[in-house]
């Protein structure tokens, strides 16, 4: 829309720049830090001129952090793998369970359907620490503590409600007549679900899956309590960089860059498809 006066336009440009700088600065700064040694990071005043080094990444992937006078063994690659395993599995499981459930909530009005849907959403409201302690005790007793299965199960608390509520909205936006038309053509309701509802809600399911993936990837507190070193995701693993002999800023920065890269790339890749999916048929005469 273009109804602004020149002054309004300039002010708008300035405001946008401020916002972009505000949000992009930490990311850029972290990226720059990851190519510097601790010494150059900590010099005062800070400077943008430095000799780039890949040492931080080398140390991370090699698993050996060399600090001031000591060497620390870290399992960063293992942590990264754990993050992938936990996020991918929990999102897949949540899609498998959540999409049909979302469809049921969107299409069928059964007794208590609103209450059940709301209860599921309310898991998002509860502070995680509230459920964590009892959960940790249970998990220890039934042997789920420190297992992938246990963690994936707990991750459902984060991802399932998200997927359920987003996808439900998309299903509700599809006219039931379109599905009726498919059934009247002689196809079963399950075929109508698979061939009509699923593809039409596709962009929504993708969006929900992506969002859930990011939430799962960034989760910290569940894994901190319920997983020990060999099952830890990167979010928890990065704690190891705070050592007794100092904080390894360069390596933390490199770890952050590496751990954020998958979600960032995924979002960038999916963005195009999401926007395409959402803007279909938006032009009207």
């Amino acid at each position, binding site marked *: *829309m*273009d*109804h602004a006066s020149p002054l309004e336009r300039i002010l708008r440009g300035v405001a946008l720049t401020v916002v972009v700088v505000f949000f992009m600065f930490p990311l850029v700064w972290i990226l720059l830090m990851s190519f510097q040694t601790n010494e150059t990071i900590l010099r005062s005043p800070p400077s943008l001129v430095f000799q780039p080094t890949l040492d931080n990444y080398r140390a991370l992937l090699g698993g050996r952090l060399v600090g001031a006078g000591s060497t620390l063994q870290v399992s960063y690659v293992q942590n990264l793998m754990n993050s992938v395993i936990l996020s991918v599995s929990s999102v897949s499981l949540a899609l498998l369970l959540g999409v049909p459930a979302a469809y049921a909530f969107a299409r069928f009005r059964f007794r208590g359907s609103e209450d059940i849907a709301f209860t599921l959403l309310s898991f998002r409201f509860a502070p995680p620490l509230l459920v964590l302690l009892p959960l940790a005790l249970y998990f220890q007793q039934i042997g789920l503590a420190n297992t992938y299965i246990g963690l994936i199960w707990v991750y459902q608390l984060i991802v399932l409600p998200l997927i359920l509520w987003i996808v439900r909205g998309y299903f509700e936006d599809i006219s039931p007549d379109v599905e009726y038309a498919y059934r009247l053509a002689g196809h079963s309701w399950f075929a109508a679900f698979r061939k009509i509802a699923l593809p039409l809600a596709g962009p929504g399911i993708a969006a929900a899956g992506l969002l859930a993936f990011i939430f799962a990837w960034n989760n910290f507190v569940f894994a901190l309590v319920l997983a020990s070193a060999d099952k830890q995701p990167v979010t928890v693993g990065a704690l190891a960089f705070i050592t007794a002999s100092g904080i390894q800023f360069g390596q933390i920065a490199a770890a952050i860059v590496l751990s954020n890269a998958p979600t960032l790339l995924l979002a960038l890749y999916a963005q195009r498809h999401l926007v395409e999916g959402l803007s279909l048929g938006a*032009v*009207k*005469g």
Partner: protein
Amino acid sequence: MTGQALDLDRVSKIYGAGGAKPVRAVDRLDMDVRAGEIVALLGSSGCGKTSTLRMIAGFEAVSEGSIRLGGREIHRLAPAKRGVAMAFEGYSLYPPLTVRENIAFALKAEKASPAEVDRRVAEIADLLDIGPILDRYPSGLSGGQQQRASLGRALIRRAALHLLDEPMGQLEPQLRTLLRGRIKFFVKEHGLTAILVTHDQTEANALADRIAVMEGGRLQQFDTPAALRDRPANMFTGTFIGEPPMNVFPASAALSDGRLRLSLPEETALDYPQAAFAPEVREAILRRGRVTLGVRPHAVRLDPAGAPAVVLANQWLGDQTHVAARFAGGVLVTVEHERARVAEGDGVGVAFAPEDLHVFDAETGDAISHGRLLA
């Protein structure tokens, strides 16, 4: 208030400009609306009428050209600053407000006194038959009721221009007929200027002083309903306006023995004494040679001495009969005011009076003549 209210000067709307496939949804539209006039933008979906309305309202940027309202250039102003009231096709009522509050909300900006607000809401409610639902919420209303509430919210304002987007699409036919008359009366009585977007020509005919017929983003004709009916500027307007639509046939014209002969497909021919056509009309038709002939269904006469046709369908509608017949390789439709006693398969004769013939250029579709008059 008289004189020009709204003036569109070579207004275009281009979607995806600079992209690989820019789409001209509205193409160099010139249009003026006089103060106190009701103008209808009429066309099928995708013709550019809604884009035009949204540009006037300020919901779409104008790609090229300018829009002036009351002499003031408005196409760069924000919607709220244009002094334009709009009723949306999709109702867009505020859900947490009752119908009364929704309608009164439009008066907030005018700072009207509570008594004045009550009086005007009551007037609008009367006009639109929504008195009984004034204190209900939009979510509990039918589509037709919501649409009337939305219409009320637009009509209650004292704006320089009222824009109505398919204002009666959801109403049932009986109510629609009634409201058309009342709304026209209301608009005229209050001296409002209104632009109405519709795909329904009956609505445009009933409400508008002038109708702008659009197709493919272009203005086809902008004239009074009577002129659109009697003197369509081209084939598009000719066949678009009129219910049932105008019958059209390709023809080639020739003059022999003082008679004008129009040859149609399948050996069908229409033969007129040359005096039946004004000399300049005859001359224009003969100069083209190949033309398209148009005749309105109610101007077709069933005449045993006429050209042969075979009845395809006979549909009696109470006060009139529509008879469709195979004629000259196409379908010819006639309207009879009595109940026509012909059945499918019957042979009949059809005749057209020369003063009822509309002649179009076979290539461009532009009108050549209407009866005795040159286009």
